[in-house]
């Protein structure tokens, strides 16, 4: 038997139990803090600011989903926003009141959907149905689309998933009888509030974190780090990628439904390249493999433009005064991203998480063995990345 105080021995067990208690305590404290913050935001922030804080939550859900789909597996998906659109339209069509549906003239809707009236339901129950249906349909589509696409790697999968996004966009614009084309759907009831948005953030973060800290997550990271070795130890790469793709699509679909029930409209232009790249920047900025990084990235990218808008208007700092320079906000943000990528190409968090006590042993004990110099840089053994061309051709 292994003589380690780490696990196996009674001391190790006791320690891991106390670590579990500690982790629970940190989780409860974090939730309490979140609750306090939301209560404060609800009581003292104006309507616009509350919407902004809600938007942070929605973007965080999308970014955390993309962290699962692309960050853990290394499968760079440009199609995530396609699932946002599917969730958005699905949710909207479920909750828009029947009289508005007939007013907007949507002949493509099946009878039951055209007459479906959830307005008599409790608001949050209707929103829950809209979110779960939107997420569910997105997940279903992801399973169908992912089965062939997840066999691909590298830029092939990026281009192929972008193809999926383009198809979704084309359908949204041209399926006028259901989506009302480029004009989009309106009169979507404003059911999304602060609390429900953050409840979904908690659910998303929890689910993705549980996957990360399990055999699923380790297998996903392994296939990202070394595809050949992952297959050699028995990882069914296609299945693991598909799981990440489908679960990511589910939560992105949920976010789509939350989004349209906040802003009240669903138009195709909101679900295209601009949004795609915004979310990718959130995830890359935070660190491709980090859940907390995705949340931080989403927060920065949602709030920074708002605060930088004041800078654009010009300001007066005692002896220094700046006139108005429009476009400055984007330039400052872009320079910020460039600096991060130059000085921290792995993103703010890399693969790491904040609060290791809360988030478990993502990176077990950092202690180094005697005889290894502390400055031993983690370099790969020679030839570690040479993949024979023939191996590469067999991914699926």
């Amino acid at each position, binding site marked *: 038997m292994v003589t380690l105080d780490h696990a196996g021995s009674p001391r190790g067990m006791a320690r891991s139990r106390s670590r579990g208690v500690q982790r629970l305590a940190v989780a409860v404290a974090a939730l309490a803090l979140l609750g306090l913050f939301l209560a404060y935001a609800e009581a003292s922030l104006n309507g616009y600011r509350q919407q902004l804080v809600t938007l942070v939550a929605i973007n965080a859900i999308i970014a955390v989903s993309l962290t699962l789909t692309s960050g853990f597996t290394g499968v760079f998906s440009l199609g995530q926003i396609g699932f946002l659109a599917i969730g958005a339209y699905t949710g909207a069509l479920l909750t828009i009141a029947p009289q508005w549906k007939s007013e907007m003239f949507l002949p493509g809707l099946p009878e039951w959907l055209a007459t479906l009236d959830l307005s008599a339901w409790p608001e949050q129950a209707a929103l829950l149905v809209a979110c779960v249906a939107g997420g569910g349909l997105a997940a279903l589509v992801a399973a169908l689309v992912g089965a062939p696409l997840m066999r691909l790697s590298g830029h092939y999968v990026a281009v192929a998933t972008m193809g999926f996004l383009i198809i979704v966009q084309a359908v949204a614009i041209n399926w006028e009888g259901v989506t009302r084309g480029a004009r989009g759907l309106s009169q979507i009831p404003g059911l999304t509030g602060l609390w429900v948005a953050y409840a979904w953030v908690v659910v998303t973060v929890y689910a993705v974190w549980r996957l990360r800290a399990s055999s699923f997550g380790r297998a996903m990271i392994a296939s990202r780090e070394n595809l050949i070795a*992952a297959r050699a*130890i028995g*990882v069914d790469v296609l299945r693991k990628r598909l799981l990440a793709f489908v679960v990511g699509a589910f939560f992105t679909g949920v976010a789509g439904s939350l989004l349209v029930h906040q802003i009240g409209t669903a138009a195709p232009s909101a679900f295209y390249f601009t949004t795609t790249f915004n979310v990718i920047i959130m995830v890359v900025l935070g660190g491709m493999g980090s859940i907390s990084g995705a949340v931080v990235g989403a927060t920065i990218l949602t709030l920074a433009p708002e605060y930088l808008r004041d800078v654009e208007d010009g300001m007066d700092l005692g002896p220094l005064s700046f006139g108005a320079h429009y476009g400055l906000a984007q330039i400052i943000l872009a320079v910020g991203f460039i600096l991060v990528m130059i000085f921290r190409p792995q993103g703010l968090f890399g693969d790491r998480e904040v609060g290791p006590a809360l988030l478990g042993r993502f990176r077990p*004990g950092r202690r*180094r063995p005697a005889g290894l110099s502390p400055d031993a840089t*983690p370099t790969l053994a020679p030839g570690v990345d040479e993949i024979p061309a023939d191996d590469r051709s067999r991914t699926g």
Partner: protein
Amino acid sequence: MSSGLIAETTEGRPASTGEPILRAAGVGRAFRGLQALADYDLDLRQGEILGVIGPNGAGKSTLFNVITGFLRPTSGRIVFHGREIAGLPPDKITALGIARTFQNIRLFAGMSVLDNVRTAQGMRGGAGFWETIFSAPSFLRKERAIEERALEHLAALGLADLHGVPATSLPYGLQRKLEIARALATEPSVLLLDEPAAGMNAQETADLTQLIRDLHARFGLTVVVVEHDMSLIMRLCERIQVLNYGRVIASGTPAEIRADPKVIEAYLGADETPDMALPTVDGRQQTHEESM
């Protein structure tokens, strides 16, 4: 040809320690006309240690890639525990019980030593999706079992104390051992080692030889070793196959191989003379203390 070899190798050699576990018959692999492996036959018996040697480009790595599913054989059959495995994907073959290491070390770079092994360990007995999502007690129990077993495999390679270190911060020799620990964590019955002693000095190679022997006994393994280092091959293996230009040109005990003129010619022809005189009978019996 194939039946001839199988019949020949089942004769009462000292190596014959058990039932046939992995059979290959007439296996070939061509790359656009280049025959990297041709008419390859194998009758691997339970518990033996087989060495595969040959000059560079002789088809040794192709052989491993074909057995483990990374390459589809263009001809022939491979039967493992009575089941045809030619053409199965690598993960399925690993699940059936064949594990391998790589000539070029392939660790999971961003992971700790423990996580490298734990990932492999989790491929057997890992929790299901819903158990995982809800952190069910069964999930926690399975995770704990995976971690304990992974630590046992690390300990077997002398790496338990280093479990928390980033895998790529290990010195080269220990990275090779970590790859072996990771392969063992898939709980294989057959272990394929692709040049395990590459880049090691004589003392390290001697230690590794002893270590492989220990693991072979402890885990009841059947081992196939591809190696250039003749001292390791001659000390470790009961039976050796020599490949040249994708074909087996000789097969037999270390003593037979050393005396085989075809082998000497193949190596001389390749301008690569193995130091075959070095390992004597004494050398094979010599034991090396674990220096870890």
